[in-house]
Every structure is written in structure tokens, then in C-alpha cells.
């Protein structure tokens, strides 16, 4: 039922929240197709539902109706367990507030997603070291996250999202907590690393500066997705 050439396919996606007994619709009957390797930017006012959509795509939330196909697999029909395993292998998350594990060092935070997949090998450590090197974090390997600046934390979080070679990277306002300059730096790193490895990236933001690097730009408005031309 899915077109084979579309990496992501949303079909009639609807999400409501129950808020003090009342049902609030975030979006209704969304349709979207994304090809492999594309960079898609999601715009929208705060509260428009960008995070909600990313969460649905990443399988950490469930829609009220509709289907989410990623690489031909319908996330909405998977059990909680299967969905988790899918996420573990194929999805990388970058959050606005970094969301690193405070009790693990930088290196450990980085290796944890890999360890969930398989036993850590020597080459995994090399790979992690190389990635951190690229992100200019080599000297912070054994530091705990709360000793890092926001920009450094976000770079660790980008590394964590990429370490296990996911098919899809979801970035939710990754520069939202950073100053302009650091934000630009982080954004260009993200763009570089994701593009380099040919992964698909969906990036939610409400700043229009990143529009230059996007393949497609969508805006959530009035519970619907609207493609905005460049």
C-alpha cells in the first residue's frame, strides 16, 4: 500500500490530547511523503504540534488514527516492544533540552544506544572517539554532562543520535536553547554529519534561518501541514 520509493509516508494522521476532560485536536488527517536522504524542515508557532509530530514519527507517542510508514513498516501496528526495537535500530533523537543521562559520562552517553543493540566492540569505541573528534569533544570524553556548556551538550546529543547509524534523525528545535552563534555552529554540524551519511533528517524549528539547507519546508497551521515553497 505504500509507494516503495517513499521512505516516510504519513496517512491520515490524527492526534488529539485530552485536556481536563476536553479533547483538543493538534492535527487532523495529515498526509506526508519524504524520500530517503532528504532534509525536511518543520515550521510552526510554538504549540502548533511540531514536537508532537516528531514524537509520533519517532514512535515515542501514538496517534489517535492514521498510519505512519517508515521504510515500509507501519509503526502504528507495532506492539510497544516492537516499536521500541524499531526505534532502537533506526531512529536518532536530538532534543531541544539535550536530554543526556546525567549519571553517564559523555562517552557512556554516546555508547549506550549502541550497547542496546549489541555488545560494545573495540571498533565501536574508535567510532565514538572519531565522532567526538569531529564534534570537537575529544577532551570531554569522561566528563559528566552537567559540566558541559549547552552547545557542547547538544553536540554530544547529536553524536548520540548518529552513533548507531539510524535511517532517520529527528531533531526537535536543537538550537532552541542556544545562542545564535552556537546555534548556527550546531546546525551546520548536524547538516554536515547527516548529509555525509545520507540519512534522512526532519528538523523542527521556529527560526527561518535553516530554510536554506532544507529540501522541503512544511508548516503546521490550523491542524494541517502546508508545504511552503522556497
Amino acid at each position, binding site marked *: 500500500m505504500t509507494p516503495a520509493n517513499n521512505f516516510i509516508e504519513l496517512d491520515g494522521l490524527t492526534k488529539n490530547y485530552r485536556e481536563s476532560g476536553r479533547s483538543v485536536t493538534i492535527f487532523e488527517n495529515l498526509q506526508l511523503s519524504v524520500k530517503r536522504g532528504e532534509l525536511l524542515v518543520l515550521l510552526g508557532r510554538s504549540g502548533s504540534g511540531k514536537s508532537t509530530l516528531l514524537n509520533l514519527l519517532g514512535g515515542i*507517542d501514538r496517534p489517535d488514527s492514521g498510519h505512519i510508514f517508515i521504510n515500509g513498516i507501519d509503526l502504528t501496528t507495532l506492539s510497544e*516492544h516492537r516499536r*521500541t*526495537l524499531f526505534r532502537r535500530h533506526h531512529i536518532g533523537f536530538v532534543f531541544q533540552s539535550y536530554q543526556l543521562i546525567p549519571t553517564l559520562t559523555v562517552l557512556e552517553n554516546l*555508547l549506550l544506544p549502541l*550497547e542496546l543493540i549489541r555488545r560494545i566492540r573495540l571498533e565501536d569505541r574508535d567510532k565514538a572517539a572519531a565522532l567526538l573528534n569531529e564534534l570537537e569533544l575529544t577532551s570531554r570524553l569522561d566528563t559528566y554532562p552537567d559540566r558541559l556548556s549547552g552547545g557542547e551538550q547538544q553536540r554530544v546529543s547529536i553524536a548520540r543520535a548518529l552513533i548507531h547509524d539510524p535511517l532517520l534523525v529527528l531533531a526537535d528545535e536543537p538550537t532552541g536553547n542556544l545562542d545564535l552563534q552556537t546555534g548556527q555552529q550546531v546546525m551546520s554540524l548536524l547538516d554536515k554529519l547527516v548529509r555525509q551519511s545520507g540519512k534522512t533528517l526532519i528538523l523542527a524549528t521556529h527560526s527561518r534561518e535553516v530554510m536554506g539547507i532544507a529540501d522541503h519546508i512544511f508548516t503546521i497551521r490550523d491542524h494541517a501541514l502546508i508545504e511552503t515553497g522556497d
Partner: protein
Amino acid sequence: MNTILNRAGRNFLLRHPWQLALALLGITLGVAVVIAIDLALDSALQSFKQAERTVSGNATHRIIGGEGGLNEALYRKLRVEHGMRNLAPVLQTYLPIRQNPELKLRAIGIDPFTENAFRSGWQSGQNGAQAAIRLVTEANSAMLGRQTAEALGLTIGDELIVTTGTGDHRLHIVDLITPGSAAATEALRNIVIADISTLQEITGWFGKLSYIDTIIPETDPRTTRTRLADLLPGDVSLISIETQFESMQQMTEAFSINLSAMGLLSLLVGMFLIYNTMTFLVLQRRGLIGNLRLIGVTRRQIGRMIVTEALLLAVIGTALGTGLGLLLGQLMLQPISATVDTLYFKIDALSLSVSPLQIGKAVLLGIGATILAVIPPLREANRFSPKHALTRSQLESGTRRLTRSILLLGLLLIAVGFAVGFMSETSIQLGLASVFLLLFGFALLTPSVTLSVMSAVETLSGRQFGILGKLPPRMIGAEISRTGVAIAALMIAVAATIGMNLMIDSFRVTVEQWLNTTLQADIYVSLAGDKPARDKAAKDSQLKAAITELAEVEEVSTVLHTQVAAGGMPVKVSAFELTEASKNGFVFKQAFDAELWRAFEEQQTVIVTEPYAYHNKVKAGDTIALQTAEGLQDFKILGIYYDYSGDRGRLAMSRTQYLHYWPDLGYTGIGVYSIAGSDLNALESRLRDRLPQGLELKSNRAIFDASMQVFDETFLITETLRWLAAGIAFVGVFGALMALQFERTRQLGILRAIGMTPGQLTGLICTETGLMGLTAGLIAIPVGLLVAYVLIYIVYLRSFGWTMAFHLNSAVLIQGLLLAIFAALLAGILPAYRMARTQPADALRAE
């Protein structure tokens, strides 16, 4: 401003109903247990006093003899020859009644012509003394309390059928007593009043009295006292009724202190619950507090807000606790007085009496404990700077520094605990204080020990299970201010449980061994009948002869348990006729040979039980002066023997020695030794056939079982209370772990987002709580052993004078460890279940 500030606080509280409920539960249960124990213990004693006071009225002193009773002639001599006034002769016994075989009425024989000055219960009734006159004029007449009569379905004109050593007797009810006050009504429950001669007749106590009450006027006490005392024979004492109450209260002191300690343990654990909740509420609000400080709220205002909250909790919790305490107290009254009954003295009428003082004490304790528990979180709140709320890890790095100071304080407390233990001499309170200090000291060591254990575990599990293996110990170490407290509380509860279990176990084994040694005869006959009854001695000795004549019987030993006087107070004495075999039943603290047994038989000597020696501070070689009709007589103490049948102690002397000075009151028990190889069942049934009705026969096995049952019943309250304390601790640990996982929701959300399955997360949480349980259990084992040592060698020795052999039951240790792990695991399951059902997206949104 202030009301909005309070509203900000209140709204926050109401969003955490579970934590609130836990704090309330902590205060409520702690206060309830303290009140309940206090009330039940006090009420048991008060009930006893009230009943005695009602019966004896205004009497200030009492003339008492041995268990054989006083000679009625003494009363006549005092009144007629010496013209003494205000003497109230009393004969007292317990009578089983036909109408309700379960019930024994306390029968009090009085002289209706006793002066009204006494105003005793029966005199102050409706018809008072006039009705009492009918007791003399009408044969076999008696009065009953109205309440008792109603309960038995009897009224004036009916007959009460009572059973005594001389058979069944009918007592004609001539009047019902309706005392003025409710307390007196309560105290006169289960009492039947008759004329002395009526009671003498139906019990066979001809010419005997139980005691004579007297009023010694306060104006000239010394002269009257001396004059009266001089007129009394040597084996009769004049004691003040107040002194008698005091000495009875003293008897139960050790028992009371030990129970109260259990109450305090509950409160201590309850305090932990309050501390935990308040800390949780403060930490959760560090953002809110930071913001409030930013907009200009002062530290003092923040402090006031938190203290107000705590006080509100304290007041509600204490009120609930007082209510629950009254209820629990009512429930505990029966078992506690039953224990007092078995161990010390008989309490006839029981009612819960509550004094404002007791309630005040509990209120003070509840509120005081809350204030104490809220101090650390209050200080924590004041550390939040107005510029930025501290992050959790910043708070924790401060805590780690604090851990070191706490470690030192803990070591100090332990040192003080040991010092107090060693220097406490005979004080039970100090002994218990040492237990508390040790427990608390080790609790303070817990955070440091936990950190070391966690770094060791991390190294091991990290090697084995990688980063996932490192996570649980890291998480415990990272939040040591919360985890440490939970582990410490669990450790205290488990260590106390282990300590108590080891102590009870050691005690049990000791008593079992003692019973096995002491029960030498094959069959024991226990003889009923009131000791003052005129023909008891003759009947008993006929019975003994009859038993000795049986073909299967090799020999018999006998014992008479009674009381004599020493220093004006009654002392328990056992007069023995021992066989060679029964001598083996005594185990002495020092070597005891045949020579000494000869002295025991032939010279004026006694052997004393260990509690007697302990409480009276005597040793072998000392002498005890006993009151006899021929004046004071010195008895040399030959040795001290182990005896666990009572905690006040007794003397034992040979029957020959006893009969030199005291009247023959027959026997309390006869031990039957069969000829080797004879059929014990056959012997038992032959004895049954031969002997008069009402005698009890017991094999030594049956006595053993019955004694162990009494032992277990005696410890029932202690055990119940211990489980209650452990239960509160468990709720506390449960709450702490729940709060911890709750605070961690977002972190768990991240783990789920990066691909951890609900199953793995459950594993992670349970590994963490399980590790906490394991740590608590591991620390609790040595601490529990230490507590057991202190309980056995200090507290119980001092309380009861018993030496126990330390019996190390490793099953108790393993049970304790498993209990800790199980409790912690259980506390992990609910948060794990909740997390498994939460979508990671929602968890990530949580603050």
C-alpha cells in the same frame, strides 16, 4: 502576597496527594503506636489500682500474712484486747461459678460492721451498710454488682452457684450494689461480696483472713504505725497500700519500658516518613522556590511557608494518630493485661483510662518529631539561590560533602552508644538508649557505606554488563541524599527485626533447654484448692501417699509454691521435697555438689533463682532475713539457679526447712517418677481413676508445650509491635523509592526514547531498588547481630535478670536479608509498571 504565596505552596502539595498521604501516615502511625502502648499499659495498672481502691476504700495500710492467711484471732486481739479501731478484716478468693464456667468471680468476705470511715465500694452502694447487715443475718447470702448480676441474668432473690474445694454452694443474692461512680461500677465488676463467715464456711478457710485493712491517720502516723507493728507476729507485715501499688508498678517496669521502646521505634521510623515527604516536597519545588526568591520573597518567608506546611501535617497527623491510638490502645489492653496477668499479678476489671497528660505527651511527640524531621529539608530550601535553581547534581555534590560529616557523626554516635551500653550498669533505659544510639549511628554510616558498595558494584557489573550494568549503582550513588535515607530506614527496620528475632530465638532455645532439664518427672500432678483451707494439708498428704503406693511409681517429689515475707514485702518461695532425679532439674550458675544438697536439706539455707539474685543484688554465701512467727530468721544462700518461670525471682528451700517456721499448706504439685519400663499412659489413666476430681495431670511433654505456649503468648505483643514498626518502615521505603522514581520520570523517558524496552526499564528499576535492598540487608546483618547482643546481654538481663545463651540462627540473618531485598523490589515494581505504561513522549515532558 502572603496568601498567594501560601496558595502556591498549597497547590503544589495537593498535586502530590500520595506523598502527603505517606507523611500523614508516618505521623499518624507513629503517634498512634506510642499512645496505644502508653494507654494500654497505664490503663492495665490503673484498672488494677482502681479495683483495689474501690474494694479497700479509704484504707491506708494493710496487714498481710503468708498465703496461708492471717489468723482471725489476730483481728480479735487487736480490736478487743487493744481496742484498735478502723480495722477491716477481709477474706478474698476466686470462685468459679456454675452460671458461667468461663468466669471466676472475685469473692470478698467482709465484716458488715466495719466502720463507715473506710467508704469502700460495698459501703458506698445504694443501700450501703444496711444491706450488708443482711449478709450476717441471712445464711449463705451475698451481694453482687448490678452490672455483674445483669450479665449473668441474675437478680435479687436468685441464687449464684459457686464451686470451691468443698464442693458446690448456693449463694442467695440479697442485694445488688450500685456504686456512685462509673469507675467504681467498673471496678466492682465480677465481684461478689459476702460475710466473712459465709465465705469461710464455703471455702473451708475456718478461722482465716486474707488481710486486714486499716486507716492510719495522717495526724500521728508514726506512733500508730509503730504501735500496730509491735503487736503483729513476726510473720505478719504491715505495709502501706501506696507502697504496695508502687512495688507492683515496679514489677512491671521492665516490661513497660521494653514496650515503650517499641513505640518509640515506630515513631522514629514514622519520623523518617515525614522527613522523606518534606524533602521530596522541597526538592520538587526548588524551581518554584527559586522563582519566588527571584521576585523578592525572603528566606524567612520561604522557611515560614515550609514550617507552616509541616505544622499543618503534624496537627492533622497527630489528631488522626490520637484517634487511632485510642482505638489501638483499646485493642491492646486485653493482650497487655493478659501478659501482666501471666507474669505479674491478676487484673480483674479492665477499662481504658485516658488522661489529658497522656494525650498531651503524644501531641508533643507528634509535633516535635515533625519539626525535627523538617529541619534538614528546611536548610536545603534555603540553599536554593534566587538567581538560578540549583540542578539536582549541584545539590548532590553538596550532599556528598555532607555525607562525610554524617559519617563522622555516625561514628561518634556509635562510640557513644557503646560507651552508654557499657556504662549503663543496671539501667534498662540506658541499655535501650544504647540500642537506639547504635541503630541511629549505623544509619548515619549507611550513605558512606552505600557509596563504597556502589562503586564496587559498578566496577563488577560494568565489566559484566557494560554501561547498562553501571547505571543502577550510578543512579543510587548520584542521588545519595534520597537513596541513602531510604536505605538507612530499611536498614534500621531490618536490623531491629533481626536483632529482636535473634533475641527471641535465643531466649526460646534457652527456655526450651531449661524446661527439658527442669522437667525431670514423668507425670506432674497439680493440686487445686485454696491454701488456707483447713483440711488441705491433710488431704494433700493422703493423696501423695496414694500415689506413692501405686505399683508403677518409683518415687515422688513435691513442691509447694507460696509466699513468705522479707522486709515487709512478700517473697515467692518454693518448698521442695526432692528426689535424686529431681535434683538434676536444677542448673546452677556455679558448681553445685552433693555436699551442698545436704546443706540444703539439713541447714537453714535457700537457693535462689537468677532473677531474684539479680533484682535483690545477692550472691551465694549471702544471707536473707525472712520473717517468721519466731522473728527474723537468717537463711544462707547456697547457690543461684537458672529459672525462667518468672522475672521477679523466687527462693527455694527444702520442705523440712520450710516447715520449721511456716504452716503446712499442702502441695502445689507432685512429680511422679515411674519405674523404668512402665507404661506411662497406663499410669496416667490409673492416676486419673484413683485421684479425686479436679486434679490436673500433665505429662512432662504437655507441661513443656504449655510453657512454650505461654512463652510465645508473652512475646506476642512484642512481635506484633515489631511488625508494626517494620510495616511503617516498609511504607516509608516504598514512598521514598516511589518518590525517587517519580522524580526521575524524564530520565527514564530518555532511556525509553533511545530504545530501551519497557522490560529492560523494569529490569533497570528493579535492579536499582534490589541493590538498595541488598545494601540495606547487608548492613542490617552485622547491626542486627549487635542489637541482639545488646538486647540479650544488656537490656533483657537488666529487665528480667535472665541469662540467655546467644543462639545464632543463620536463618534469621538470611530472612532479614531477603526481607530487605523483597521489600525494596516490591517498591520498585509499581514505578516500573507505571513507566511501562507511560508513553516516552509524556515522560519526557515531565518536570
